[in-house]
């Protein structure tokens, strides 16, 4: 059974079909790329998958469960975590607290225990700190644990966003243009990070990308979106040599 199975997904905004009859099947462990020119509807697909928008038609299944029309929160709890094109960190919180927000579903104590710092509070906080630190180590952020997220350099902010998403314990990770605004060095480092996440956590990843080099370097499969429709789908090499894709990308 596929991990993510999307059928005939469509949404219109004021008569314009932003996403039209979108299908995708992602197997467990795959690293999948979603590419397409500007305004093709890539981020809209992410917003549909994470419940920010509700589709007009279509079904989204995660691990066999229907998650169509569920709220963003429920979808996160069901196992989809994401990052954003324009970084959305909790800017005035420390690096470790950003991750601990993500861990909140897994490590629980009551609000009263939290307000009085009694009961399970100390033990659970300790476990959270440990878990958060080991996650930060993976992303090489453990040295900045008490730095405010807003004060991190750009590349590290991107990494922290991925770390926070991973903290929620997802089955599927959605990355929205993770390399946007990065220089070649940072992009290279990011590719390593993504590869590492995949290896370390056995993670299934769907990523939106403009950077062709990044896409062809790490994705096994691609879906090309153009004007809200799927233009082409399949193994990376085949897709990239498809003449239609080349036209869509380079223009006529």
């Amino acid at each position, binding site marked *: 059974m596929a991990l993510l199975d999307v059928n005939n997904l469509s949404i219109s905004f004021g008569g314009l079909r932003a996403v039209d009859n979108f299908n995708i099947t992602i197997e467990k462990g795959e690293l999948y790329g979603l590419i397409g020119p500007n305004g093709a509807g890539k981020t809209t697909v992410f917003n549909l998958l994470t419940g920010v928008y509700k589709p007009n038609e279509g079904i989204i299944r995660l691990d066999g469960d229907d998650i169509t029309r569920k709220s963003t929160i429920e979808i996160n709890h069901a196992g989809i975590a994401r990052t954003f094109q324009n970084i959305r960190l909790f800017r005035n919180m420390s690096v470790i607290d950003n991750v601990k927000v*993500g861990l909140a579903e897994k490590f629980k104590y009551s609000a009263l225990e939290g*307000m009085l710092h009694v009961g399970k509070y100390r033990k659970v906080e300790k476990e959270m700190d440990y878990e958060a630190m080991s996650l930060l180590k993976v992303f090489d952020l453990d040295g900045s644990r008490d730095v405010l997220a807003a004060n991190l350099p750009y590349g590290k902010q991107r990494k922290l966003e991925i770390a926070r998403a991973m903290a929620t314990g997802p089955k599927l990770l959605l990355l929205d243009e993770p390399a946007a605004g990065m220089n070649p060095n940072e992009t290279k480092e990011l590719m390593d990070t993504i590869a590492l996440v995949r290896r370390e956590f056995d993670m299934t990843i769907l990523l939106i990308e403009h950077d062709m080099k990044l896409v062809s370097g790490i994705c096994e499969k691609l879906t090309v979106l153009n004007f809200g429709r799927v233009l082409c789908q399949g193994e990376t090499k085949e897709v990239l040599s498809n003449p239609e894709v080349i036209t869509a990308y380079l223009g006529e």
Partner: protein
Amino acid sequence: MSKTQKSNFITYGIVIAAYIILEVLMLTGNLSSHLKGLLVPMTYYAVIAVALNLCVGILGELSIGHCGFMCLGAFSSAFFSRATEQIIPTVPRFLMAFIIGIAVAALFGFLIGIPVLRLKGDYLAIVTLAFGEIIKNVINSFYIGIDSKGLHFTMKSAMDLNMEKDGDIIINGAMGITGTPHNANFTIGIVVLLISLFIVQNLVNSRDGRAIMAIRDNYIAAEATGINVTGYKMMAFTISAAIAGAAGVLFSHNITTLTASSQYFGYNASIMILVYVVLGGIGNIRGSVIAACILYMLPEMLRGLNTYRMLIYSIVLIIMMIVNWSPKVIAWRKKTFGGLNLISILTGKKKGVA
């Protein structure tokens, strides 16, 4: 001991030290009766400043109706104390008055939060103002009395209560409640302040507090991270209202005649509390306590300053906002002083944002 724990203990230490100094001054007769009379108000203004900072600095939503919650706490507890004065001994009665005042304020915080927290920014602020005024106006038209036949209630006039001769009017419309027992004192005020500080500072360093601050910083990302945005907003708002209610209990048990007047419970009073919070540092709990105490005491001590007090506060408020928040000024400060932040030096730490 972690850095945040240390910072929390410093806050408690400052409050306790101030308490000891003032008590010693009082015992040695160095405090005028005028100043003594200001101590309890100082504590309840500090308490409501903590409550409002939870709402503005930690939750990130501007409320300009918080004195409405204080008003609810004051009236519900004073009503209880007046009605049971002859029946229940002082200590358990005052304790129960606290529970009632806090519970009523929390309940209304919750009920008002349901519609209010669906809104954002300016709209939310103006609706909190609206609710604050509604609470004040409605309480002003309440008439409740007790006689041998039981409880009487009307919203028309004292005459319409139709009381027996032995009747006792407890809430008399705009004339409010008279004769609430004077159970509050400086020590109790300080204890309430310490408990409020304990709860809010602990909350900030807990799973729930982090969720609340995450919503403040970016609610879209918070949702995507699985945080129940509505639930946590409600939680923070309700706790904030409850603490404001506790301040109200202190208020009503320190005053002979309690009226729901604009001076104490209108939006202007709420804005005064906001001034304490902003000048103490939005999100800086310790700062708002210090600011509330100093800004309340200073003009009362320096009588000549009183005329200019609000004028000075308003100017300082505007300047503080521009210095701390203007993108251009921030850029200039960074260029001139490097990473140094003037405000964080002045107030110890700067955590939150509105």
